Each structure stands twice: as structure tokens, then as C-alpha cells.
């Protein structure tokens, strides 16, 4: 088991790709804590699945844009588990609108959750990692950060900021045995992509050199790799898992 007894937090880990990440770590022997903001139904379903799969698991309700909630969340994990090995900054939202119609509230909220959330969660965990001279911080970015996308000035700015944040933080703590990287999932098969109309589906497929959507395991494979010992000499990098999209 690649991650036997490693302590992992996945923010936004109760649905979608975040849930897939959490379950993948659990299958590899990790102790997995997942946070969620508000979807209680998904949270309790994921909690039940984790309890069957994971050596140990924790479900924590926390808004990643709130410093007090994140500090409380991390403190709770440290109190119960002693230390943390891996953080996956997965929690993120979209509020897509063309700039002309994008109000300040939609700009601020996306920046708070996606970028500030990544800063707050990373800051909350690094002391524990520094004390043990070991850690993995993996943040989720987007193709939108690399190429831009109409209707996503806020989202792509937040995800682009995550890339810059990753590169800077990696330089701060590289010597301390902590790697900081980003994973950039492309278009991944999920219930959302299954409901796309044919025209949108075909437009997207035409943009992808491999001509197909990715699977959740493609993304979780990349995350597990970056979290593993095999990636110990990789830091400050962005790994796009997108079939050649970017």
C-alpha cells in the first residue's frame, strides 16, 4: 500500500474529483480527512464509503475561505492524528459570466474560495510538515489558467494564481522536504459531462488531441504520484492531465 498510515486532507473531498482522490488515498492505506462546505448528503455518503475503505477517516465541515474554520479544521486533524503528511487543495467553485456581467460578488467569492482557500489551507498545515521535514501540498488548477476561457476571467485568474502560489511556496520550503505542486485536470468524465448536449460535447472533444474525455482515475493517478516517494524530487511543477488539451 503506497500510503500506509500517511495522514491526508482533501478539501472539497466529498464529491466529484475530490471524492475520487479521497477514496484513492484510502485504498492505498492512508488516513483520510475530507472537508466539505455545505452538501450534507454527499458528505455523509462519502463518510460512509471512507469508513469502509480507509484505515481511519474524518469528515470536517469547513468553508475554505474562512481562516477560523480552516484553522479549527486542521487543529482537529492534528489533535486526533498528531501530524499531517499530505494536503490536496481541491475545493473550488465557478461563477462563470462574461466580464461585462461579472459583478464584484462573483469575482470575490471565486477568488476567496479558490485562491485564498489554497493559501489558508496551505498555511494551516505547513508548521506540522516543517516540524517533521516532510510534506506534500498538491493544489488543483485548471486548463483555464493556462489558456484562458471566455466567461471565466474570475475562475482562470484564481486558478492561475494557484500556479504562481505553488511555484513560490515550493521555493520557500523545498529544502525542508516538502514538495508543492499543482495538477491541472482537463475535461474529465463526470455526471456533469454526461449531461452535455451533443454540440458542446463535440466542441470539447475536438479541442482534445486524444479525442476523448479523461477518467477520474487519470487525475487521481497523477495526484497519488506527486504525493508518493517517487516524486520526491519534483516541486514547483504543474502536471496537466488533459489528453493534450493545453
Amino acid at each position, binding site marked *: 500500500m503506497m500510503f500506509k498510515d500517511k495522514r491526508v486532507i482533501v478539501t472539497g473531498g466529498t464529491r466529484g474529483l475530490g471524492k475520487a482522490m479521497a477514496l484513492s488515498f484510502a485504498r492505498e492505506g492512508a488516513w483520510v480527512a475530507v472537508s466539505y462546505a455545505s452538501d450534507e448528503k454527499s458528505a455523509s455518503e462519502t463518510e460512509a464509503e471512507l469508513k469502509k475503505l480507509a484505515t481511519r477517516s474524518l469528515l470536517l465541515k469547513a468553508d475554505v475561505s474562512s481562516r477560523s474554520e480552516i484553522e479549527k479544521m486542521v487543529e482537529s486533524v492534528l489533535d486526533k492524528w498528531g501530524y499531517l503528511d499530505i494536503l490536496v487543495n481541491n475545493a473550488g467553485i465557478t461563477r462563470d459570466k462574461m466580464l461585462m456581467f461579472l459583478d464584484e460578488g462573483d469575482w470575490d467569492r471565486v477568488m476567496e474560495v479558490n485562491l485564498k482557500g489554497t493559501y489558508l489551507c496551505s498555511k494551516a498545515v505547513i*508548521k506540522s510538515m*516543517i*516540524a517533521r521535514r516532510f510534506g506534500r501540498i498538491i493544489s488543483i488548477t485548471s486548463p483555464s489558467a493556462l489558456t484562458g476561457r471566455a466567461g471565466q476571467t474570475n475562475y482562470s485568474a484564481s486558478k492561475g494564481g494557484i500556479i504562481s502560489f505553488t511555484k513560490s511556496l515550493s521555493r*520557500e*520550503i523545498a*529544502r*525542508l522536504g516538502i514538495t508543492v505542486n499543482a495538477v491541472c485536470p482537463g475535461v474529465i468524465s463526470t455526471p456533469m459531462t454526461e449531461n452535455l448536449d451533443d454540440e458542446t460535447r463535440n466542441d470539447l472533444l475536438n479541442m482534445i488531441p486524444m479525442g476523448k474525455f479523461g477518467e477520474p482515475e487519470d487525475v487521481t493517478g497523477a495526484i497519488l504520484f506527486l504525493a508518493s516517494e517517487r516524486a520526491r524530487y519534483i516541486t514547483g511543477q504543474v502536471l496537466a492531465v488533459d489528453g493534450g488539451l493545453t
Partner: protein
Amino acid sequence: MKEIVNNSEELCKYLKKMIIDTLKLEEITAEEIKDDAPLFKEGLGLDSIDALELVVAIENIFNVIIEDEDVGKRAFASVNTLARFIQEEYNQGK
């Protein structure tokens, strides 16, 4: 820990050992670190990354939190300034 903190000489000895152990310094002994010698740049030649480790160590050992970079810079000027800083903060907190 209270006895060590309130005895300046003992605290300085403790801090020198803590610095060597935390940063895994192999080329210097605790006795070779002078109480008033600069810890950063010249003197011991520590850098900002070393400072991160020392901040974490001080928090874990003494429960003294350094949240402000400027406060940290002043505290870490030398072993003596660090000892005085820890004594003040530790006794305020207890």
C-alpha cells in the same frame, strides 16, 4: 521547562543545542556559538528557511508563537536576544 526558561544561562545553552539539533548542524558545537554573535547572515550564517524551522521548534517546545516576521527578525538577532524574547513571551503566557 519553567526552570530552564527562567535561568538565562541554562536557557542560552538549551537554545544553542536546540538550534544545532533542529537544523542538523554538524560543523559546530553548542560551545562554539557565542551568546551575542549574529545568528543570521554573518555569525552562524543561518537563512530565512532555517528561521522557519526555528519558529516551529520554538512553538513546539515553549508554546511561544512568532507570527510577525519583524518580531522574529529582532528575536533571532542572537542567542541572547532569542533567550530574552522567549523569557518575556513564555512568562506572559503562563
